């Protein structure tokens, strides 16, 4: 063993390393480029899932865009309201907190409700199944339930149940749009978080044809449209659709729908309650009530009939004295 060999080789490499290191350090000082410190802060405040839900390739690009003012601070669907307010603070603007949206599978025609035309025995993948004459379901618009959405979901938020339908867990869903993109039937859409009243049908065929195929289907009878007190539900292309801006979740359409394809838990329906000590008898609530559930004379305490009340909350909005509560 030649010790000098070891020493010279070690020393040479160390000197080279040091020289290059010094050169790099010098260069990074000399040629330093100033990066917007906001970009760094924004990047740290983001969830970092790189899901692309914002429309940018990843969180870095989104952070750049926000810092340069090319993207809104509430543009991250995953981070939600807390992330938006954090970004707003960094950018020094007020966050317009958007309503959180979640994905929703607009089909309730499971194996027991919807007929099949043939038995599909191919690869368990909706996209593959959809290529084989639409995938065995008699309804061409319904959920196939082979779990393509389940496999693309990065947040474990969508699962196929035993009756062959995909269900979204609204708590876990971040509206990143992966499932919406993957679904060959485009049966997944976005609904506001917490929205109960949803039309659970995607079939745009004419009523009798739909009815033949599936028990829980929209037959475009228009009963919901006629009964809605708020002009929030309309039948277009043989399919009812709800304007979630106008919908007050009064669930009248849920009650009236002959095929029960509009969801909504009637037992969860809220009732208006007038506090007698606050009520001044202005009759405003009585006039606005779509179901005449409120009775009472001018300047006398009004009363809500719980049987008639549909829980739409219109009276709460109108009451000048905050005397009405939804319970």
């Amino acid at each position: 063993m030649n010790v000098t060999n070891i020493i010279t080789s070690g020393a040479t490499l160390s000197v080279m390393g040091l020289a290059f290191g010094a050169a790099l350090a010098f260069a990074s000082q000399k040629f330093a480029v100033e990066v917007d410190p906001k970009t760094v802060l924004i990047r740290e405040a983001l969830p970092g899932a790189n899901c692309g839900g914002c429309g940018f390739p990843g969180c870095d690009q989104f952070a750049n865009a926000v810092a340069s003012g090319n993207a809104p601070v509430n543009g991250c669907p995953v981070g939600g309201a807390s992330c938006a307010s954090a970004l707003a603070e960094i950018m020094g603007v007020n966050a317009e907190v958007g309503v959180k949206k979640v994905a929703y599978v607009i089909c309730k025609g499971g194996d027991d409700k919807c007929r099949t035309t043939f038995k599909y025995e191919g690869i368990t993948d909706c996209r593959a199944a959809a290529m084989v004459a639409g995938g065995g379901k008699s309804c061409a618009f319904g959920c196939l339930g082979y779990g393509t959405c389940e496999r693309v979901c990065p947040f474990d938020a969508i699962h196929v149940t035993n009756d062959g339908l995909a269900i979204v867990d609204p708590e876990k869903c971040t509206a990143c749009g992966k499932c919406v993109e993957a679904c060959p039937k485009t049966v997944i859409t976005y609904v506001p978080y917490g929205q109960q009243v949803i039309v659970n049908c995607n079939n745009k065929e004419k009523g009798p044809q739909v009815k033949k195929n599936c028990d829980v289907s929209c037959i475009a009878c228009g009963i919901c449209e006629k009964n809605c007190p708020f002009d929030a539900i309309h039948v277009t292309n043989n399919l009812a659709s709800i304007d979630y801006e106008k919908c007050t979740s009064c669930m009248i359409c849920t009650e009236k729908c002959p095929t029960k394809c509009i969801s909504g838990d009637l037992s969860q329906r809220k009732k208006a309650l007038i506090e007698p000590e606050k009520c001044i008898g202005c009759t405003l609530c009585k006039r606005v009530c779509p179901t005449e559930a409120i009775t009472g004379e001018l300047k006398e305490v009004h009363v809500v009939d719980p049987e008639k009340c549909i829980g739409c909350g219109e009276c709460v909005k109108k009451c000048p004295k905050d005397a009405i509560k939804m319970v």
Partner: protein
Amino acid sequence: MENASLFVILVSSILVNNFVLSRFLGICPFLGVSKQVDTAIGMGLAVTFVMTLSGIFTYFIQYFVLVPLHLEYLQTIAFILVIASLVQFVEIVLQKTSPTLYQALGVFLPLITTNCAVLGLALLNIQYEFNLIQTVVHSVGGALGFSLAIILFAGIREKQVIADVPLPFQGFPIALITASLMSIAFLGFTGLV
């Protein structure tokens, strides 16, 4: 190869001993950034740039540091050090002096830092006992060969995107088959030099 003329070295490094298709060096960027012709051109430019610089640099390191000290066996580690530092240095300088070129090359420069084609070229230069001018020619030729391969490949892959490829072959499988066919095609140049 000692008395090889410069032209022979150039043709040999571009076609006959193509770095990607005959030596199988630098496969990762070859497959990784060859989805579009534009990015492939960017990558080719960056590789040309770095290969030429590192070829010259490693030549000096070899003959002015390692040989006098009898440390030729440290080639590999020393060259890695040189190439990595060089690429970083170039990146920093480019970022400051030419933001447009930095934007064009930016993503690819760090990728080349540990590219085996760049290191392989530096080691081959020494193995063939090239002088400085031969080294430069061989480096430029090797880099042009790489660019040629990656740009041709990207052109084919752009067409493949719209082609009706059977599902099991979509993506990388068909890309690898294409690459192997290209490699066989380049085999035809054997014996040219």
